[in-house]
């Protein structure tokens, strides 16, 4: 044994566990719509109640059920973002890439998704973006039906209005 050889102190031994995931009633409806190329959310059945997407079936603030289904736009606003310079374990995506907290028009909560087809140095809070979908024949029960979001030629949303746009976007 050569003296320069490093002592092995750690051996990676991955363990795999296969399981069936039951989405639950609210996410199942969300995913069924997503398979048709539609983004939806849910709200409590009362005026001014916030719209959650993806819905979990209850409002996280009040605990009450979100019974009303609402259709959302596939246009969204950048609430914040990061540019990631290191690889994500188990993901083939090449750094650097932009991961953004986006709020879809008609929703009141952000989700994270990839931003692409853009100049990373010009991404900013309040920027308008739209989904770039995979070809329809590849659609599944997954947010991966959307490949990424790309900037669109619309004026920035003022910060105080981010997360408060209706489904028709900036037109009100």
């Amino acid at each position, binding site marked *: 044994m050569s003296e320069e050889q490093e002592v092995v102190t750690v051996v990676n031994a991955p363990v795999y566990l296969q399981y069936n995931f039951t989405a639950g009633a609210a996410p199942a409806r969300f995913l069924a719509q997503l398979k048709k190329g539609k983004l939806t959310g849910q709200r409590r059945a009362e005026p001014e109640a916030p719209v959650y997407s993806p819905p979990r079936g209850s409002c*996280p603030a009040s605990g009450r059920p979100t019974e009303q289904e609402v259709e959302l736009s596939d246009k969204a606003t950048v609430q914040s973002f*990061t540019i990631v310079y290191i690889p994500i374990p188990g993901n083939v995506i090449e750094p650097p890439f932009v*991961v953004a907290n986006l709020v879809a028009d008609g929703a009141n909560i952000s989700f994270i998704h990839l931003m692409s087809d853009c100049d990373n140095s010009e991404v900013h809070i309040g920027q308008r973006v739209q989904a770039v979908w995979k070809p329809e024949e590849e659609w599944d029960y997954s947010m991966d039906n959307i490949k990424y979001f790309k900037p669109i030629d619309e004026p920035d949303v003022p910060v105080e209005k981010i997360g408060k746009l209706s489904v028709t976007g900036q037109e009100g």
Partner: protein
Amino acid sequence: MANLAAVVGIGQTRYTTKRQDVSIAGLVREAAVNALQDADLGWDDIDAVILGKAPDMFEGVIMPEVYLTDALGCNGKPMIRVHTAGSVGGSTAIVAASHVQSGTFKRVLTVSFEKQSESNAMWALSNPQPFSTHLNAGAGGYFAPIIREYMRRSNAPKDVGIKVAVKDRLHGARNPLAHLQKPDITMQEVEESFMLWDPIRFLEACPSSDGACAMVIANEELADQAVKQPAWIRGVAMRSEPTTFAGRDEVNPQAGRDCAADVYKQAGITNPRKDLDCAEVYVPFSWYEPMWLENLGFAPVGEGWKLTMEGATSLDEGGDIPWNCSGGVLSSNAIGASGMIRFAEAARQVRGDAGDHQVEGAKLALGHAYGGGAQFFAMWVVGSEKP
């Protein structure tokens, strides 16, 4: 009204990338033995053990408290496990304290640990969720957008995070247990370190450490007989809020503000910057110092960064309210232990036992931890004087 309780013994391991000479059991035992020695006590003097660590998926050992009972002298005694993500070290200390304050036990041992060299936290925090886009890029990926929003709101100069990164490493250089020893670190070195999750640079993020921290907490009668100055627990508080809800202020979470208000009220604190002598606050990414300065009421909203830039939080600059004199999470991050290290270091300060990072004459100190998506908070205030 709760009974009085005090910290009568503190033990830590040194923090380092790989502790190859000990197993997980050996690591926790080392901290526990150090705490017992500090208190001049033995295993038989302990009524129960309260153990905390971050998610089991990190090391892949499920319910490690079960197998660690032996190493912690806990056979036949109650063992309680606490789990609140990154804030767990703080929550564990509070659970331990409350078991003494309630009169359930007279004297308990509390221990927390992480052995990051035998785990993969980045992987464990990046696991794909069913039906979701797989873009979870570890803790930094989660907190970077929140930091960016703070920078926008406060309009703080770009080098605030760099200044904190330097300040906490200079503090860490005074603490022989700290993982990173960088007495010659400069602003330029931090600025030139590579970007991980923009706007977080490599040297603005915490290291990955092995280590454990332990404390012995006793009731009033036993603390009065302690061989060393006890750190009297003057207030404890925990709060949590959901990860996401519409209108949630992720930069300045309500749960953090409520938790601070509660612990200050118990300790009789009306102006934390004036009334406290120092604080050990969970700052895993440098920009969290100005953010928590505001959340914890040391500065008005939007002005936390001014304290940092004035040197108010720096021991080396003679600041009036030094933060993280031990070097903080930015100098040592044994995740499950990190919160308890904050609590223990606050106690070391008011015991006058903090060595080269002692704040002269410290009488009242804050220990703070947060975890999850900045949604779990744990805080205590400890003092040299019995309330």
